[in-house]
């Protein structure tokens, strides 16, 4: 049971480049989330999705776009990377049942030069 899988695990970009982070879950969860974690801080929600074809903004959505074309996948895109987007990105999923925890991937470490 893989749970939540994120690819890639590491990436270095130059300012202005674009890239897409992929998250896949095999638990048939309805809800999926993208967070970023900066040094010494907790996670902050970027975007989330409550179902296939739906997305919504979280706390820090600027500079990111997301898509959920399939229930099991949630993509995070950076159209024009900026050094301020250097961070560790975590994907999570959960069922829609009340009071259920989120399941996290191992993260993608992204550096923007």
């Amino acid at each position: 049971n893989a749970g939540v899988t994120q690819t890639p695990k590491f990436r270095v970009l130059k300012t202005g480049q674009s890239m897409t982070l992929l998250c896949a879950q095999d638990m048939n969860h309805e809800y999926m989330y993208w967070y970023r974690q900066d040094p010494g801080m907790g996670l902050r929600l970027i975007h989330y999705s409550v179902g296939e074809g739906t997305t919504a903004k979280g706390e820090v959505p600027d500079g990111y776009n997301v898509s959920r074309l399939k229930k099991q996948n949630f993509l995070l895109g950076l159209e024009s990377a900026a050094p301020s987007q250097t961070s560790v990105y975590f994907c999570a999923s959960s069922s829609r049942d009340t009071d259920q925890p989120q399941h996290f991937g191992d993260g993608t470490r992204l550096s923007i030069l």
Partner: protein
Amino acid sequence: SQQGEEDPQALSIQEGENATMNCSYKTSINNLQWYRQNSGRGLVHLILIRSNEREKHSGRLRVTLDTSKKSSSLLITASRAADTASYFCATSKGGAQKLVFGQGTRLTINP
């Protein structure tokens, strides 16, 4: 801004001792959750306490919730070296079960 505030930011104790971490938050919640993060890894769920619960146990973990003070504590008893990690509280409110995290407590267990 982060809703949760955790205290202390760092804690270092001897193996076998108990470790207590505290979390405060600002608004009403559906539940409060505690997660552990080992270095370089994702978050692992430890325990969830609902807003109408006051205390919950899971193995060596004990969580309390005081909604009148908007605070929670996580107690780890008989600590082990493997408990060395960062611990985060997160609150859930409203639909979609969005979580708001504290900045975490970095726990070090010395052998």
